[in-house]
Structure formats: structure tokens, C-alpha cells
């Protein structure tokens, strides 16, 4: 036990002496969450709209004004011919276009259906469907505002949805992405920290010394992980405060539970870093491997940006093995929904099991090296 304490103390001295690295380790997550919190959003509130109006008349002007005053549309071009749209769409100057046909007001006046075409740049389907429903809403509003002679002879039945966005009523992007970002940034920082500490021992040859010392493999790992667990924990607290103060992300559930889960998650990431650096021979391979294995899968499979539910079945199963996926669910659950362990125990259990498996595996790989 004293030897274990000695190792922890040694590791702690390393950190304290290298203040710059320690500062970087704590500050980086804060800076990244700040940057990405403003960058990772999916709100659509500025639509670049082009208008094709071959023969402007009172009705087309009225509808155009409705688009202009809707708040989300910004008119970037008014052209006379549909062909002129091509370069606007191609270069991305316009995202959406409304196309009028000559005689719009006249048709409306005579009760002939007036033609209107809405073209949307659908390269990104998600934004496209939102844009379409925005435009549709503006047109619907216009139709309803028309005098009765224009409208249908009898009122058509309407089913009006009353929508309540639960857990995030303002539909604020940062509420969704900041809890996810915390998971993402922590993974990277944590695997980085263990990589630093282990490869340094390897480089300086002191790893051999540790291995022949009376320390047992699990003691080496505990000694290595504990100080970094503490630093990681400080990062978690810093990032949570930032989420609260800068992005006004609510924290509806228990802070203690969130901190506990954060600690558990950091433990998983640290163990993963240890396993990788203990298993690989050359630095180059280890680094390429870690990078390819963690960076994109963590963005894409954790549900941090893309909902896991939308993925094909096989990938959903694969996502079970991604610790970030569980932490994202837990963090959102506690922060946005205010739920506790009574709903989150399965996720916590998964996270704990992954931690157990990874720690066992890294102790094992240390054992092998001893022989």
C-alpha cells in the first residue's frame, strides 16, 4: 500500500513540475467546449432565398413580403427567368427559391389555381425538410389571409398539431450538443493523458524499472490512473460550470450523480488509453490506431450529433460498445430531463461494465509483459 502511495506521489510530482502541461490539460476541454458550443449547431434561422418573378404584380409582391417578414428568410436575389437560378444554386448563394409564373394575381382573382414552385437545395436532407416546412408555413399563412372570394367555398377540415418540445422547449442547439461535447472532449483528453504518462515511462526506460519493482500490475495501473482521474475530474467541473454560465444549459437533475458519472466515464477513457499504449509496440502504430479508432467513431457513433435511433440495426449494436454513447445519454438525461438513477441505471451499468472490462484487460496485458 505504501508503494502504491509512493507511485501516486511520484506521478503527482510529474504533473506538478510540468505545470504547463497540467494547465493545458484542464484548459483545453474548456476552450474546445466554448469553440464547438458555438460551432456545432443545427438551427436553421437564416435561409438564403432567391425569387423568380417573371411578371411582378400585387399578389407576388404581397407573398414576397410575407417571406421577407417571416424572419428566417433573407432575400439574396430576384431574377426574371428560372434558368438564372442554376448558378445561384450551384455556388450555394441560394438555398431555396420560390418561382412565380406570369399572371399570378390574375389567376388568383379569377379563382384559377395560381401556380407556385418551391425549389429547395436538398444536398443536406435535414435542412431541406426544415426549409420546405418553413416555406410551406409562409404560403399557408398567405392563403389563409386571402379574402373569402379566393378561398375555398367551404372551410376544409384542418387537424392542428399543438406541439410541445419536451425537455428543450426552446429547441436550443447548445442544450443538446454541449452535454455531448463534454463526453467527446473528455475522451480525447483522457486518452491523451494516459498516453503521455505511459509512453514517457517507456521512452525513458523507467517502465522496465516499474515492472521489476515489487508493485503488482494493478497497483501500477491504479498509481498511473489516480492523479489523472483527479485532473479529469477538475476538467469535468470546469466544463459543467462553463456549460451553465456561457451556454445556459439547464442542470435539472442531481449534480452529485452527474459528477459521479463523469468520474466513471473518465475512468473508462483512461483505461482505454492504457490498454492501447500497453498493447502496441511502436509509437507510430499506437497513435495512428488510437486516432482512427477514437476520433470519428466518437463523433459519429455516440449519438452526440447523429441520433443512434436513426442508424441501421448493426451500427446500433456496435454503438453499445462506445462508452461515449452511454455518457451522452446519461448527461442529457440528468441535465435536460432531470431524471436520476431510477431511469439511468442501465446506462450506468453499461459504463461500469466497460470500465471493469478495460481495466481487467489492461492489468492482463501488463501481466503478459512481465513474463
Amino acid at each position, binding site marked *: 500500500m505504501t508503494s502504491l502511495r509512493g507511485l501516486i506521489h511520484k506521478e503527482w510530482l510529474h504533473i506538478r513540475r510540468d505545470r504547463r502541461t497540467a494547465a493545458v490539460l484542464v484548459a483545453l476541454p474548456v476552450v474546445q467546449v466554448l469553440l*464547438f458550443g458555438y460551432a456545432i449547431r443545427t438551427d436553421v434561422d437564416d435561409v438564403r432565398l432567391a425569387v423568380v418573378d417573371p411578371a411582378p404584380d400585387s399578389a407576388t409582391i404581397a407573398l414576397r413580403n410575407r417571406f421577407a417578414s417571416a424572419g428566417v428568410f433573407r432575400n439574396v436575389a430576384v431574377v426574371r427567368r428560372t434558368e438564372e437560378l442554376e448558378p445561384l444554386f450551384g455556388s450555394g448563394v441560394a438555398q431555396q427559391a420560390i418561382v412565380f409564373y406570369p399572371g399570378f394575381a390574375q389567376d388568383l382573382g379569377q379563382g384559377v389555381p395560381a401556380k407556385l*414552385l418551391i425549389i429547395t437545395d*436538398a444536398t443536406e436532407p435535414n435542412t431541406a425538410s426544415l426549409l420546405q416546412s418553413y416555406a410551406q408555413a409562409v404560403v399557408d399563412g398567405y392563403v389563409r389571409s386571402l379574402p373569402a372570394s379566393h378561398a375555398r367555398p*367551404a372551410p376544409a377540415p384542418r*387537424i392542428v398539431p*399543438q406541439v410541445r418540445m419536451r425537455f428543450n422547449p426552446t429547441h436550443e442547439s447548445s442544450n443538446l450538443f454541449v452535454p455531448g461535447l463534454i463526453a467527446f472532449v473528455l475522451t480525447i483528453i483522457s486518452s491523451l493523458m494516459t498516453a503521455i504518462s505511459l509512453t514517457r515511462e517507456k521512452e525513458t526506460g523507467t517502465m522496465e524499472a516499474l515492472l521489476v519493482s515489487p508493485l503488482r500490475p494493478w497497483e501500477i495501473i491504479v498509481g498511473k490512473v489516480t492523479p489523472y482521474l483527479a485532473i479529469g475530474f477538475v476538467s469535468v467541473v470546469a466544463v459543467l460550470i462553463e456549460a451553465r454560465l456561457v451556454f445556459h444549459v439547464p442542470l435539472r437533475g442531481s449534480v452529485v450523480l452527474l459528477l459521479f458519472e463523469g468520474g466513471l466515464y473518465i475512468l473508462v477513457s483512461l483505461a482505454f488509453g492504457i490498454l492501447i499504449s500497453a498493447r502496441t509496440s511502436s509509437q507510430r502504430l499506437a497513435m495512428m490506431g488510437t486516432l482512427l479508432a477514437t476520433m470519428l467513431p466518437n463523433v459519429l457513433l455516440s449519438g452526440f450529433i447523429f441520433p443512434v435511433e436513426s442508424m441501421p440495426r448493426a*451500427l446500433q449494436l456496435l454503438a453499445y460498445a462506445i462508452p461515449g454513447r452511454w455518457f451522452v445519454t446519461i448527461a442529457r438525461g440528468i441535465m435536460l430531463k432531470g431524471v436520476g438513477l431510477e431511469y439511468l441505471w442501465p446506462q450506468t451499468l453499461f459504463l461500469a461494465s466497460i470500465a471493469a472490462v478495460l481495466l481487467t484487460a489492461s492489468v492482463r496485458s501488463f501481466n503478459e509483459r512481465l513474463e
Partner: protein
Amino acid sequence: MRRILYLTQAEVLHIVRDRILLAQVLIVPVVQLLILSNAATFEIHNTPIHIVDLDRTVVSRGLVSHLAANGHFRIVEATPSADRGDEGMSRGNVSMVVVIPRDFEASLVRTGVGRVQLLVNAEKGSAAGIVQSYAAQVLNQYANELASGRRPLYQALGDSMRWGPPSSGPLEVRVRPRYNETQNYKHYMVPGILVGLMTIIGTLLSAQNIAREKELGTLEQLNVTPITRGQFIIAKLLPFWVLGLVELSLGLVVGVLVFGIPVRGSVPLLYGVAAIYLTVALGIGLWISSLVETQQQAMFVTFFIVIIYLLMSGLFTPIDSMAPWVRSVTEVNPVRHFVTISRAILMKGAGPAEIAQPFLILAVSALGILTVAVRQYRKSAS
């Protein structure tokens, strides 16, 4: 010229001999492209919903069967009270609760307006907005069917419905999605992920390469040879540059054969831009390697730069949604411009005129970063 050739040859031998590295560089990205393109989707299929039908009439049941039949939704449970729905939402296995109030049919018949409550789990990322708009579509469609009397239900109810015969509205609105008519998310993601993978591999390999020579001490040996700085850098980067283009080709083949992504624009144009882009990516790597001492440092710096580049490139979330000041920051991000160009050429069939602006920025970045990197790299022992 011959010097460059020899050094390049040495470099190629290094790469080819390291089988594991070669596999990592060529196979892993293809596998990632195959897997991750499936993950990056906001498409809604089988979204679990919970129905609370308090009305229990012919019309309300018709609405429920419409929701069930449309393919976007999967009804996990239908209960007569809203409590269970709420619980499912807290647990996270229900994405939307549809509450049909008691007087739904009556109100629809009497006033022509029926209200339905949609409780959407907005925690489910940006999919929440889509779920809501799909639900609204189904409601609209159902209302129209009721109006047009195509449903036997309408005839059965006969005179109790006071809606007039189907009439065309005052407007005939047609909607046309351009470029991605089938709204296939993979067609959007594959050209982007391709760029992401090229960036990771290119920047990382070049950053590590020179750092490794530094560590091994072989850089000193090269420094005392008569080779010039420019020659050295060209010889170092050339193999990775070719590797990057090979990567692009592999990715394109996979994209077209497996995901059926459209290739509407000119492929030579794409390769031309990729050639310029790769010099930027490799140049950044080179610059990093000249700043650091060890492979490890090279790795960390690359790691952070690449993460920032990728997350702020519009690859995963649209540039247009970012905060205005972040949007201006992304102008200096080469990944952003190549992602834009790659999507424009492949999906929109854009020609040189449409991509001129981002291309110009890329070209300027290439010149800038190479100049900086060459200046930074000194043939000195220190």
C-alpha cells in the same frame, strides 16, 4: 532532380515495408467510410411513438392507422392515459407522444378544426424537428383525405360532415427538392467523410514523418547532404501526396459502387482540386513537424488541429447554423472549402465557375502554408 527521386524512393520503401501502416492507411479509411457513412444520418425510420387516444372514434382510429402506416413511425404502445407515455419519454424509449383529445371527432365535425397534441422528445438531437414535421405532414394528409372524401369513413358518416366537395385551393404549390431528390443522407455524407479521412491521414502522416527522422537522428544526416530545403520537402511530401490521391480514388469507388453516390460534375476537376487541397493538408503536417521535437508532440498538435478542422468544417453540422463569428473563423479552414467543393462537384455538378471562390482560398492557403513550412524548416542541428 535525381536527388529528389532517390529520397522519394527511400520514402516509398519505408511506407511499403511497413505493412501494418500501409494497411492502416489504405484499408482502415475504406472500412470507416463503409461503416460511418451509415451512422451519419438524421433520417427518420421507425421512430418509436406512444399513442394516447382519448377520443376512440372512427376518425381518431383512422388517424392512428395513418401514423402507423406511413413508415416513419412505430407505435410502441397505446394507452388510454398520458402517464405511461410520459414515463416512456423519461426512460428515453419513446420519441413522441401523440395525444388525441376526447372531443377530437366532434370538434372536427362541428368547427372543422381538430386539435392533436404532439409531445416531442427534443432531447433526441435535431431529429426532433424532423419528427415533428413528419407528424404534421401525416396530419395534413389525413385532413386532406377526409376532405376529399376518398375514405369510405367519410361516406359512412355521410351528412354529419359538412365539408364541401373537394375543391382545388387558390394556390397550386409544387415542391421540388434539388440535387438530392431521394433525400438520401449518405449521398451528402460520403463526399464529406472522404475529405475528412484524406485530411486525417495526410496531415498525420506528414507531421509524423519528419518528427520521426528528428527522433531517430537521421534528419541530421540529411541535413549534411547537399540536398536543398525545397528538394527535401518535395521529396518528403510526394509519396504522401500520391497516397492521398489513391485514398480519394478508393473512397470514390466505394462511394459509387456501395452507396451509389451521384457523380454529376467533372471527376478530373475534383482531382485537380484534391491535388491542391492535399498540398495544404500535407503542408500543415509539415509545418507542425518543424515546430515539434518528438513524434508524440507532433501527434498531439495534429490531433487537436484536425479535430477543430473537422468539427468546424460543415462536415457534420451545417456552416449556416454556426454562430456568425464562428462562421467567419471557418473561412480559414481548408477542410471547410474542400468539403464544400467536393459536395458541389459530386452532387450539384458544379463547374469551375461555381467553385471559383473556395478554390481560390485553397490555392492561396497552399502557397501560404508551404512558404511558412519551408521557412520554418532549417537545415541546422539545433
